[in-house]
């Protein structure tokens, strides 16, 4: 129970209404989710559209409250309204569309937004804004207007706006979904730096397998239930199970899987390109020697 986020038998459902406004039934989005997220980890949450992964993410900082069960953030129950700002300061959240997260017309004023809300002293705000902008490598753009920046840069500003609060955990809800490949790379590098260099717990909601493969732990959600929860190598060795719930595996893993099917003795735990290339190189040079 010492993790930064704990959920116990979390159930979330919403009511369905007909045209007359009468309740006709309930739609259960999350079903008995029990999770324990350790501080300092890098957790990826995978699932196809409508699996409930975004709904789950919104429970991590009290945006949504459980219908049944409990969510504890650093030991605080998310239904405790008096401490909602402590919760939101502990767990920051970054969304998909960077344009819809930026409030101010100047980069540094936007990064300062959360601190202004918290009533931090102006001098301290200045210090923390500069620090946050340097962490995401956007310090040179501090006086630009958001609309002059690229998508990846805007998303990094949105991340800076969260880390200025100095949260212990950041939940990212598909932060790369609207970005081009270059922006995606920038964001993944930023996420990894936050996790490895600054010790911030990262929960990355994504449907890009290559991104999930970089995490320490992957949780696969399907129809509101936890389907798999393990290290990426183990998760992606379950190629058939993942495919059956409409998910893919990283391309390297897919290649190994196809090779195995056609009779080559390929390992099932290869998830990144380098490992894959090394294996193929060994395989081919062995053949040549024979």
């Amino acid at each position, binding site marked *: 129970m010492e993790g930064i986020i704990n959920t116990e038998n979390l159930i979330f459902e919403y009511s369905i209404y007909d045209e007359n406004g009468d309740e006709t039934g309930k739609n259960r989005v999350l079903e008995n989710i029990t999770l324990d997220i350790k501080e300092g980890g890098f957790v990826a949450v995978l699932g196809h559209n409508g699996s409930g992964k975004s709904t789950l993410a919104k429970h991590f900082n009290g945006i949504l409250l459980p219908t049944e069960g409990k969510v504890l953030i650093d030991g605080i129950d998310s239904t405790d309204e008096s401490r909602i700002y402590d919760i939101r300061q502990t767990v920051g959240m970054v969304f998909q569309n960077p344009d819809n997260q930026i409030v101010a017309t100047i980069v540094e*004023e936007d990064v300062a937004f959360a601190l202004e809300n918290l009533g931090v002293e102006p001098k301290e705000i200045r210090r923390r804004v500069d620090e946050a902008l340097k962490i995401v490598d956007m310090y040179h753009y501090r006086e630009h207007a958001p609309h002059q920046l690229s998508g990846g840069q805007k998303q990094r500003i949105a991340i800076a706006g969260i880390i200025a609060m100095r949260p212990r955990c950041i939940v990212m809800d598909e932060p790369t979904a609207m970005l081009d490949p270059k922006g995606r790379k920038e964001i993944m590098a930023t996420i990894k730096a936050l996790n490895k260099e600054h010790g911030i717990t990262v929960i990355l909601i994504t449907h890009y397998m290559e991104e999930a493969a970089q995490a320490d732990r992957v949780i696969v959600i399907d129809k509101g239930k936890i389907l798999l929860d393990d290290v990426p190598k183990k998760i992606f060795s379950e190629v058939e199970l993942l495919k059956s719930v409409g998910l893919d595996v990283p391309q390297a893993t897919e290649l190994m899987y196809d090779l195995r099917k056609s009779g080559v003795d390929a390992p099932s735990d290869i998830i990144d390109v380098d490992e894959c290339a090394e294996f193929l190189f060994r395989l081919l040079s062995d053949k040549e020697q024979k």
Partner: protein
Amino acid sequence: MLKDITIGQFFPGNSIVHRLDSRFKIILDILYVVMLFVAGNFYSLAVAGVFMLIIYMLSNISFRLIFKSLRPIFPIILFTCLLNLFFIKGEGEPVISFGFINIYMEGLTTSLFMTIRIVFLIIGMSLLTYTTSPIALTDAIESLFSPLKKIHFPVHELAMMMTIALRFIPTLIEETDKIMAAQKARGANLDTGGLIKKAKALVPVLIPLFVSAFKRANELALAMECRCYRGGEGRTRIKQLKSGVKDYIALVIFAVVLAGVILLNIYIPILGL
């Protein structure tokens, strides 16, 4: 094409006029309007005009912009001018008589006077927007109106709304461009036809724009909540508005010129000029 629209006509710079506290600039601008309306004769009006020209020179704003700011309100100036010209009846003989139209000497002077006053008014007001960024203006308005919080006037909320509107103008313009391109690609005809036809053709552009604006608002509210937004209470700002010696000096100069204008008003008629 739509991207070329400039909102607020701010020209960044580092002149003394740019660096004045935006709250003071608003107050000084109001003082200038007062000055123009107090000015009762051509002499005092001339003083106000010269004063404005000196400030323009200090601000390093090109004089061409003066004409640019006047262009859109030219019809109003013309209307005022003609109205005064034709409808003021003097005591003496009409200077020009053309059928039922009689133009008197008084009409001529009043119309000239009014025109000059409006021109100065516009020039003075546009100097404020030329030298002050929209954000600084918003902050100044929030600060100047803050006493109204006592009577529960939502000052902070209004300022926040203005900031968000300013923030989203470029985003929505870009989106409008995209939607227009998309609708054109589907055969929408947006450029031809009369005014009514054109207005009707805009409906398929406006509906998706509205839907998307609502979606954006929803997401933005969520993001703001995640960043602990809870209204204006107990909020601090990264940039404090600071007033210094220069702002008070500017205020004194304005007060002196205003006094001069009032004196001219009183003494010129006495001297019989």
